[in-house]
């Protein structure tokens, strides 16, 4: 069967460009993963796991600059409660999702997470929330897995910039892909402990 796309010098140049683009993608991915830290603590309370999460260093200097320019960040927390099983994969017994908007007020000079003032955006102490157990919790060990995802540049935010002089108000696919690339993520996990005294 004949080749539909025979190899030409143009193909070689194309391959080089693809490598360069790929290296940039990889560098972006690696840089976004660096230096973030999330802490999680969970205790039992009345048949539900109470989870406290502190997200550290997810807002870097670049994101701070974007926030101060007026873009709002979207912090999303996906939480899963697992029942630990020996010699087998842990069983997911409950899930919850929490979203917070992170913004900066030029008027007051302060950051806020939802309605809460934030003194230092590099330390985001989130309000306590609960994850209920499907069924009744037994004596097994339980653990909580937390995934934090901060997106400062949303497709809509990019569209806001790109649409100057244009009537198009929809965030297109390129913008969505670009915005998805500008995301910082971090995971943490902790055991569900008995309530502290």
């Amino acid at each position, binding site marked *: *069967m004949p080749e*539909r*796309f025979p190899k*030409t010098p*143009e*193909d070689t*140049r*194309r*391959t080089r*460009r*693809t*490598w360069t*683009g*790929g290296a940039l*993608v*990889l560098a*972006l*991915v*690696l840089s976004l*993963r660096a230096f973030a830290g999330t802490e999680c603590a969970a*205790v039992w*309370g*009345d*048949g*539900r796991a*109470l989870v*406290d999460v502190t997200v550290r260093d997810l807002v870097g200097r670049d994101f701070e600059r974007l926030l101060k320019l007026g873009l709002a960040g979207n912090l999303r927390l*996906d939480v899963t409660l697992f029942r630990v099983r020996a010699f087998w*994969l842990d069983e997911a017994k409950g899930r*919850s*999702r*929490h979203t917070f908007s992170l913004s900066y007020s030029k008027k007051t000079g302060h950051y806020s997470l*939802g309605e*809460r003032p934030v003194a230092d955006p590099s330390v985001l*102490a*989130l*309000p*306590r*929330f*609960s994850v*209920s157990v499907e069924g009744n919790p037994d004596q097994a060990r339980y653990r909580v*897995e937390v*995934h934090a995802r901060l997106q400062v540049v949303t*497709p809509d935010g990019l569209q806001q910039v790109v649409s100057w002089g244009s009537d*198009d*108000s*929809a*965030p*297109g*696919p*390129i913008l*969505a*892909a670009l915005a*998805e*690339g500008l*995301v910082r993520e971090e*995971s943490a996990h902790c055991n569900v402990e008995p*309530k*502290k*005294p």
Partner: protein
Amino acid sequence: MSSLVPLPLLLLLVTPAAAGSGPPAMEDEQEETVTPWPGVHISFHASRLSRCREAEALRASLGQTLGAVAAAQGAPSAFVSVRLSGLSTLSETQIWSLLGEEASLPRDADAAARLMCRLAATGVFGEVTPSVSADPDGGATAVLELALHEYPRVVRASVSGSVEASGEELLEAALEEPDDDEEDEEGCTCQVSTPPRDWLAFRGDGALHPGLLRDGLPAVLQRAMRHLRGKGYLLASVSASVVEGTLTFQVDEGKLAGVDVTGVAPELQAQVTELLALKVGAPFLEEDFRAGVHRVQARFPFLEADDDVERPGFDVVPESGTPGTSYRVVLRARKSKRNEPTLSQGRLQVHFHFRRGGFDAAGADRDGYSGLLTHTQVTSFAPGMRANAAVYDPQDRFRLALQGSLSVNTGSPDHRVDGMVGASGQVSALHLEELGFQAYSMTDSDDRWRVSDLDSSFGSLFLNQPEREYFRREGVSGFASASVAERILLGFEYRDDQYGSLAPAQHFFSFFNNSGPAANPAIDDGRMASAIFRLEASTRVLKPTAVALQWRSPTTALYADFKGWALDEELDSFASTLSTFEVGGPAWGGDSDLRFTRFLNEDVAQLKTFEDQAVRLRLRFVAGHNVPLQKSEALGGWGSLRGYDFKEFPGDASAMGTLEYRYEFATAFADLGTVHQPGGWLSPKLGVGVSVGYRDILQLAAAWRTDSSARAMPEMRLVILPPF
């Protein structure tokens, strides 16, 4: 002989609140007026430091006093010294050392007022009461005497009553160190001297350090409340007392007495309450409510509610009969804005607003793709727009979705415009996910399972590698699908279409390979009518979306999720399956030479092994009889058999398996596939490769073929939004 100067007017009581450094008695800012002695009024904000104003009032009062002393005794207008009294745990030396001043320095009214302010601002005195006496050594000169009343000293602490909140954390917060933000920012003359930590009670290293209660018991309660509310316990209340050096907290996190939902049809009340998932009888947490509202809105997009609960106000009031040693928090309801969620008497009232419909001019699909940048070898650049509209029923008996799309094919004069209109209804009582139709005249492809729309367009626009072949399809379709237990979908679709071959675009442009449009073979033209039976199932909940209206292909799932690590989801374990059976011919209304059958099965399973790591397995099998060219099977290329050329292995049946291991942003994969040709099954072909990138959004992939034509240089592609 010393003589006491009778100055009954000078009975100035300086409390920290009057000096502006003390704890606010109320949570809210309130203007209060005190009358320290007749003729002098001091106004202050209870919740805000305003030492300047109080210093001014003190200065004026002390100036009056010194003037009176001077007039009566003929003495100069200054206090020759200051005496401190009333100290119980601290010494005079410690106080003067903290302030950095001396007792025996002459002070005019300004300096005396500043000194009193500074004493009050230390946060260790509940009262600073001045009086004036004649200097026993200096005859007619005046001495300022300050009676100091220390806040209670605490040597033990206990917390009781808490169900969920940690007593240790509460104590730590209530006895926390002074916050610099609380300092006066008005540039007052009243300089604040922070007392050494050793003087104060605090919690450190898991134990209580004995000391004075900074700012007094009401301030300690304020800090305890701030801690509980910071955690989200909006119904919490606390009381505290200090008896014989023991600080005792009684905590009530505030149990939810009930939830009142309004603005929702009675038929949906139970579901909405269940989605809110607020446990009556358990302590109320603000964030649980917010997450619950978001769950409701995800399930019922026509219900809108404010997710910020109006916080009840609170006052710190002394317990009757125990002045100064026992206080408690009293909650008070606030007047809420219209339809704002409120907490009253332990009950949560939440109001939802019904939205009749919605309109989305972008018409973006599940991948956020709106069709704006379509580029193919038969249309060249084909900018287009989609629009979605939705109509809702308050009782959610049905949902109506309308969709339309229009695009302009810049490189195809024969078919300049593509268009589609469709409508679909969802009837929850019948578990009917869709019942609708569409009419279209458009450029279509049977290769949508290989790469995403966006990937194909980018590949065509930049590299002239669309990884698809296209044809013209004009006609109408009707369809109906029902779900079982939200995880199985059974569907039927009838199509009556006129098919036509499409020549490569006459005016074609591609950025980095503009050597003419990619090949687009001819198809079997004619009228094709067929019926498609569909079965989809997934361990994930099927997601009904309007996207199902647009590109309905027998080779891709409409509802079941095949994404390994999608844009908006966590990496998890799942399994999904898709089976379609299509039969066409004259019995259904089509041409007699377009009589065919085709069966397709595709299964994807993903097993999360560790955090951000997973194994993925994909199996795909297709077989048919007399399948027309536009639906014929072929393996090879991105999305099918990676490392090989696009559709390198045609046949009337194919079988393919893919195994991948994903480690965070890196993936290793192997594709194995074979096709059935007239001579029998081809020997299996293996392609291997690796990719790096962000989830299943953007991946740089390199793939090698392993047959006799293998090369060291891999095939490479930036893969955008891979379909599986």
